[in-house]
């Protein structure tokens, strides 16, 4: 059963979508239950995946670094005098993608429960929702660059419509902006993909015919199966505006994934998308879609171009640091709770850039852990923001005060997740940041001052979280509209059902982070050492 497990996890929601398609439009509850069942099954499958993942594997090269590998021929096109083009359905996971898949399946389940009291054409909503879940999980498991790119693009449409149709007042603008930002990013990735596949050949397949077979498999690209005079073959002398073409390709990938991450100069789509998206979709947007950007850095940018990565650690770290500080400062200036949380996500995502740029095991481990812990924390934060929005239709921090009086349990959860997000030790936020700082200050590629300035980030995040907490939750109970006072009831059963597991997870990961970092440690170590070894190999060429 475990050999086709990955394909099952990826395409199970698609099967369920087909079932939902044939259901009549008005059977809302039945559709919701089916969607819940689908995501629950997906979660169970990913738990099985987690436990049957062999953590002790010590890979030597990328080709045997992946488990649960499934490979099937998909497309083989004849390219004229440039030989053949081979695209195949190639999926597999290593430690990094394993964690991402588990995180996604869990948050997808949370998303379904969070969108339970939705009433506007439910059928369309859940069809798009399940398509989104297929493409997200597929993206994490894909080992073929073309397959990764297809899933990467496949995410845009459902998310565009989910924000566009079920979103808030300015949803049109936000959804278009989200779509265009990400599409521009993906075009950069497309350009690099074309350059790559033209300069890569799969030696195993070329054997039979005499023409070169260009393949898309990431494993081949990472292990350096380049043809002699390809445009992106390591050691090329082709310059593009004075920079080595490989470096240009790496920078294009960085920009593409930085838009998705988002990193500072290209982050302005995130607050708009979050403010307008419905609660469940905000959870997914923050929990999963930002991680695709981070995962892209791990698997594609750092995996295929380690030589460029090693030389460009300094600018990447600077961007990470700016994201942390700038994101924090802008969060302080917001007076909409959801927009503040969105900017705080920008700040937390800066840690991933910094962690990766430090190019050592702690840094990479910290970046990975930060992705997982941010997924849970920001998911919970958006649910909390949604709680207020469902009750009053408004999220302005200045429009409420003294909520602790009216909703004590709710305030308890807000305090837990606010402190988790500002990095209180004992909760999962701190572990990621601690490891990234450890990596950044201990890395021999980065100067000390970058780490020190980033540490100021934890002070800034404490500032805006506590300021929001004090203005909104403490002091006398007051709401801008008199009518809201009656509707400020405390958490309902459904909301509690959502928040308790998230709270337990956040505390558990804070106290014993080795639960998830332990099995994944070999993959991270292999990832860093292999990148370093490859980079020295390429630079020598």
């Amino acid at each position, binding site marked *: 059963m475990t050999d086709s497990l990955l394909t099952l996890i990826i395409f199970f929601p698609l099967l369920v979508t087909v079932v939902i398609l044939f259901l009549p439009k008005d059977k809302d509850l039945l559709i919701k239950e089916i969607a819940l069942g689908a995501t629950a099954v997906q979660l169970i499958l990913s738990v099985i995946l987690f436990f049957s993942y062999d953590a002790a594997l010590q890979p030597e090269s990328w080709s045997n670094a992946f488990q649960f590998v499934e490979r099937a021929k998909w497309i083989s096109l004849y390219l004229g005098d440039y030989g053949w083009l081979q695209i195949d359905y190639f999926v597999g996971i290593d430690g990094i993608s394993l964690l991402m898949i588990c995180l996604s399946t869990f948050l997808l389940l949370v998303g379904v429960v969070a969108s339970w009291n939705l009433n506007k054409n439910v059928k369309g909503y859940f069809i798009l929702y399940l398509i989104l879940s297929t493409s997200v999980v597929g993206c994490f498991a894909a080992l073929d660059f073309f397959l990764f790119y297809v899933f990467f693009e496949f995410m845009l449409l459902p998310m565009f419509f989910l924000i566009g149709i079920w979103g808030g007042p300015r949803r049109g603008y936000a959804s278009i902006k989200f779509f265009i930002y990400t599409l521009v990013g993906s075009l950069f990735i497309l350009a690099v993909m074309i350059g790559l596949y033209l300069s890569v050949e799969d030696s195993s397949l070329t054997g039979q015919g005499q023409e070169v077979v260009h393949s898309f498999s990431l494993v081949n690209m990472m292990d350096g199966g380049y043809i002699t005079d390809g445009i992106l073959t390591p050691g090329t002398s082709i310059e593009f505006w004075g920079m080595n073409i490989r470096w240009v390709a790496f920078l294009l990938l960085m920009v593409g994934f930085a838009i998705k991450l988002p990193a500072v100069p290209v982050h302005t789509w995130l607050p708009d998308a979050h403010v307008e998206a419905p609660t469940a979709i905000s959870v997914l947007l923050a929990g999963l879609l930002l991680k695709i950007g981070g995962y892209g850095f791990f698997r594609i940018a750092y995996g295929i171009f380690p030589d460029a990565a090693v030389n460009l650690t300094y600018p990447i770290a600077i961007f990470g640091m700016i994201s942390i500080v700038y994101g924090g400062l802008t969060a302080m200036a917001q007076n909409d709770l959801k927009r503040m949380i969105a900017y705080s996500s920008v700040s937390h995502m800066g840690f991933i850039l910094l962690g990766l740029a430090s190019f050592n095991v702690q840094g990479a481990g910290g970046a990975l852990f930060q992705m997982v812990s941010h997924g849970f924390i920001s998911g919970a934060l958006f649910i909390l923001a949604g709680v207020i929005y469902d009750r009053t239709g408004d999220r302005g921090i200045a429009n409420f005060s003294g909520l602790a009086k009216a909703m004590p349990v709710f305030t308890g959860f807000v305090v837990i997740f606010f402190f988790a997000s500002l990095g209180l030790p004992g909760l999962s936020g701190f572990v990621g940041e*601690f490891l990234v700082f450890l990596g950044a200050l201990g890395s021999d590629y980065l100067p000390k001052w970058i780490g020190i300035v980033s540490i100021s980030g934890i002070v800034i995040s404490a500032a805006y979280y506590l300021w929001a907490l004090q203005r909104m939750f*403490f*002091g006398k109970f007051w709401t801008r509209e008199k009518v809201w006072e009656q509707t400020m009831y405390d958490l309902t059963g459904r909301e509690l059902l959502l928040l308790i597991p998230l709270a337990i997870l956040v505390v558990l990961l804070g106290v014993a982070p080795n639960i998830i970092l332990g099995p994944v440690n070999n993959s991270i170590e292999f990832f860093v050492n292999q990148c370093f070894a490859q980079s020295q190999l390429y630079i020598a060429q």
Partner: protein
Amino acid sequence: MTLIKTIWPLIFILPLFSGIIGGLNSKQSLKLSNFGIGAGLLFSIILVWLLDEPLILEWKWLEGVSFGFSIDRLNAMLVLLVYLITLLVQVFSITYMEHDPDQGRYTAKLGFFAFSMVGLLMSNQLVTLFLFWELVGMSSYLLIGFWYQEAARSKAARQAFMINRVADAFLLLGVIQVFNNGYATSFTEILSSGNQWDGFTGLCFIIGAFGKSAQFPFYGWLTKAMAGPTPVSALIHAATMVTAGVYLLVRISPVLIEWNLQVIAIGGAVTAFMAAVAALTQFDIKKVLAYSTISQLGYMILGIGVGAYQASVFHLWTHAFFKAGLFLAAGSVIHYMHELDSSKDAQDMRNMGGLQKILPVTFYAFLICGLALSGLPFLSGFLSKEGILTGSWLWGQSTGNYLVPVLAFCTAGLTAFYIGRQILLVFFGSSSFTQKIIEPMLTIRVPLIFLAVSSLWFWNSLNPINPLGWFWNSYLFADLGATSAQHSILGVLIGSIGLSLAGLGVAYWLYRPEAELTQNFKNSKEPAQLVGKISFHGWYIEKFYDQIVLLFSKIVAGAGWFDKKVIDRFVDGMGVTGVVMAKVIGWFDQNIVDGLVNFMASISQLIGRFVTSFQSPKIQIQIGWLLLTLLVLLLWFQFLT
């Protein structure tokens, strides 16, 4: 040995357990949690009794980072101290908080604080220490902001946490430096290996400790922390939490290099002196005690700096008792004033006077603890302060830097003065109150009596004069290696006694009941002349913080006219969070970065309009354009080929 192994985790978990139990049913929450804390006290006494060599418990937290606890004599004693004071404070708060609606939340928070404080004391690995260090900071934030209804109190809690957070950032930096430079990462290793830390790491730890123990430049938060309920101030901001910084410095003092120790000594001395001066002119009863705590902490830090860390630990021990006693007595005074009429400010000394006969037990407790604080012989304060003064004197002689001992001696005098002033103003003089309140026997009197008695000398050492006679001294520092031969120097002895007597005399002379100062003290305003102003506003530390934030936001904003137009409008009382700079960045993000995208969208519309303008409906113009481009092509060919 196995008994210790079993009760040790119990000691660790009990406060949390009792906090949760108390939190659930808010009616008898305090009574229930007392049993838990009492049991904890019992276990810690057994632990202190039976422990001979340190126990270590460690497990792998992260790759290359482990999570560990250890218990040795020093922190066993401190854990005992924490349990004792917590029990007394909880007994006291039964009446103090009796008509407060949510006692449950109060007990839960107290339990959480005790749990994290015990955790901090027991932690062995630096990462574990940092974890509980922040948890303690958070619990103090929760407790200061207990009465969150009033915006001022929750604002004070936030600002306290923010200042702590700044210092904790440095501590985190220090911890990471330790990991990266490969130094020993746990206290047991530090004790044994002892390879010296570099100056920068040491400095980071010092700043972290200064932040928690409210030393100079960070002491601003302790006066703000007075916004919390008085039993909380007694427990946290007098006895236990603030000493965490001292405990950390004691632990890492073997590995600190020379100039780090000098920084500690000078920092402690300066803080002690500044706080003592600030305490002279305060009106709020708790503010005086807060500044006195800062000053005594300065003493302890000074003690470590000059190498007399046994004396510092001794002072920490004695200070915990008499300062807790002072705070609880002040608490009962405030409770009484509050019962009288809750309209007036219950903490303002100007409304008090002549409470001697009305609250006899409180008076006697306050008197004994106050005299202990001022350092009179036959009281515990004298013994420990003597040790530190001797240490600083010897240190002064050896290094030739006499600033520290001079400051230490001046502070001794000033301490006696302001505590004498407070006793006279609050308890002597004409009393306008008649209603006699019999303090409830068990909950108020017993803790006060216990603390007063424990401030006497015989609790701590047989010979009232010699500082080394401390019972715990042999127990604690027998295994800590050589202790400097600290015999008491006659000169220092006479000097300290003389100074405290002089301080008390001057206070009596100025504030005796019939003196005209006490007469019009009732309606006296803020002191006019400069020295008075500096002292009243605590050396303008709050203005100092606002200026830092203003400066930082100016640097970030950068634009000259900009700050005139925007920053000045926002700067009024924004406090530590620097909202001002954030508003600037927020505007920048909205219009510039976001604007870029809309700008590109409008550009493409513009080009679109330009491009379609050729598409004029008239056919002849279209043909005209066609022929024009043909002509251009032909010319291109003629000239280029």
